[in-house]
């Protein structure tokens, strides 16, 4: 008798493809129309629909019990999460909006600075570029205000403004060098951008990477200056880059992005050395007289 029931049961089920995803347990109650089976096997076979099974097991669990839907405390927790994440998402959108503006102001500053390669007089170029700094100062202020709304989370969103900041530091450092021949310090860079408060500063690694980017510009600048007849430039740049390189070698860098940028600085230094050598052996470095074909040879 038992086996007959079992066979019938499995026959019923086998008619449908045993697609596990189909909720097949709802077919089970249909079997009860055959007759009420006395065996304990069938009793245990889930005539408990998922709903009743939940209720019966719920009664044995101490503490929070699983209701047919997920428990209210579970729902509450995830609702709280959702709200939190939505808020941080909105904050990130606002940060990104400000960063876009920073990016475009940076591009304008960079475009004006690039004129220096075309031998426009330095004071003029610097004038144009400096005008942008105030714009940037305001934008960074705006950014700081947004970030201030979630204290302590500077580094959560840091990735969103990291590369723009590095670029800006490199431009500022280059401008500073054109003006004074010295290296822009971390604190000076912070001041220029109005980042002087304790909650939104200039990250030291961003600053160092920005300096590396600045050094990447030097070889090109030197080459163009020599072409234009300024034979003193290589010597100045060489001393500067050598000092900078020596300073960087003091840092114990691990194998990260900053390390790679520092490594590229060696090639900048080498290129400038080559230009200086070319200019020196042709006796150009001492006097600024010979222009023209001598100058072009200086670029080999």
């Amino acid at each position, binding site marked *: 008798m038992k086996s007959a029931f079992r066979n019938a049961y*499995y026959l019923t089920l086998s008619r449908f493809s045993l697609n*596990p*995803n189909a909720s097949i*347990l709802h077919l089970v109650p249909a079997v*009860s129309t055959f007759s*009420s089976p006395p065996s*304990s*096997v069938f*009793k*245990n*076979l*889930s*005539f408990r629909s*998922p709903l009743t*099974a*939940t209720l*019966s*097991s719920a*009664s*044995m*669990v*101490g*503490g*929070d019990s*699983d209701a047919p839907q*997920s*428990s209210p*405390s*579970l*729902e509450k927790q*995830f609702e709280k999460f*959702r709200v939190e*994440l939505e808020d*941080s998402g909105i904050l990130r959108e606002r940060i990104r909006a400000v960063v876009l503006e920073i990016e475009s102001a940076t591009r304008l500053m960079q475009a004006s600075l690039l004129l220096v390669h075309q031998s426009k007089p330095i004071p003029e170029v610097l004038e144009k570029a400096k005008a942008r700094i105030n714009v940037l100062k305001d934008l960074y202020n705006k950014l700081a205000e947004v970030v201030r709304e979630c204290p*302590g989370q*500077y*580094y*959560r969103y840091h990735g969103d403004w990291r590369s723009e900041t590095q670029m800006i530091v490199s431009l500022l450092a280059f401008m500073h060098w054109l003006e004074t*021949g010295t290296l822009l*310090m*971390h*604190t*000076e860079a*912070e001041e220029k951008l109005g980042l*002087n408060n*304790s*909650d939104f*500063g*200039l990250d*030291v*690694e961003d600053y*160092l990477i920005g300096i590396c980017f600045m050094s990447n510009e030097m070889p090109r600048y030197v080459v163009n200056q020599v072409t234009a007849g300024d034979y003193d430039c290589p010597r100045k740049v060489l001393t500067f880059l050598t*000092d900078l390189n*020596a*300073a*960087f070698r*003091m*840092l*114990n*860098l691990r194998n990260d992005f900053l390390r790679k940028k520092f490594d590229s600085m060696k090639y900048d230094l080498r290129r400038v050395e080559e230009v200086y050598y070319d200019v020196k052996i042709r006796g150009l470095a001492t006097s600024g007289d010979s222009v023209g074909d001598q100058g072009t040879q200086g670029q080999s």
Partner: protein
Amino acid sequence: MLWLYSTSAVSRRISVSWLMATNSKIKPQRLPPSAADSSLALESSVKRANTMSTHSSIKDAFSIYTDYLNALNEKRERVVKASRDVTMNSKKVIFQVHRISKNNKEEVLEKAEKDLAAVTDQHMSRLVKELQGTDFWKLRRAYSPGVQEYVEAATFFKFCQTGTLLKLDEINASLLPLSDPSLEPLQINLLDYLLGLADLTGELMRLAIGRISDGEVEFAERICRFVRDIYRELTLVVPLMDDSLDMKLKMDTMLQSVVKIENACFSVRVRGSEYTPLLGSSDPSSFLLGVSDVEL
């Protein structure tokens, strides 16, 4: 799992930097939690340096940067080490809980609780000490894997103990006693909690399959419902997470886990009942003893 550290290289670098540091007139301090603190130190050194030549002022400034980077990297290494220890020991807790069956539930859970408390007291406490201020987000990549594993172990244990989900608030409350009142407490952030939760479902899947092979189908079905609920709740929340790509991949795995459990429960109902009596409330040693059957 062997964690090899080139400790000799590290100590060599440290000694060099200390030589450099002693040349500068600033005493090296603990890692400043924000860039601004280091800028205050920099400012004072720059003011002093301006009286000297450019050459040495660059060197002075860079010795400050060296100190900053050394402190940061050393801290990062300590955090990574602590995180790895948390990971290893949390995995042990998980293995311990996996041994659970209807016969040994009490002892297994007792040992697991002890082990989990050990992880908290011995290893999570190290993270508490190191992570202050902006470190929580700055060094997140260093400690996140450890914290995720810890969340996984703690929630796994709680489920086997009570059948419920350990909430983020609860787990954070348990971490409060670890820190001095003067220190900022380590509070697991939402993102690490959710990532740990995703890993939890994988372990639950393994547990469910294991329990089914021991005939504890009811337990497995409870796990199934639990995992379904978590998956459902997470689908609303995951797209909003920072860098949600990792989590999205975990969601795919999670759905596979849910389906595996569902299939296993289905298979045993359909096929297994023919050969072995299912462990139901009639079995005197079952933890479902006393639960009334519903007959249709």
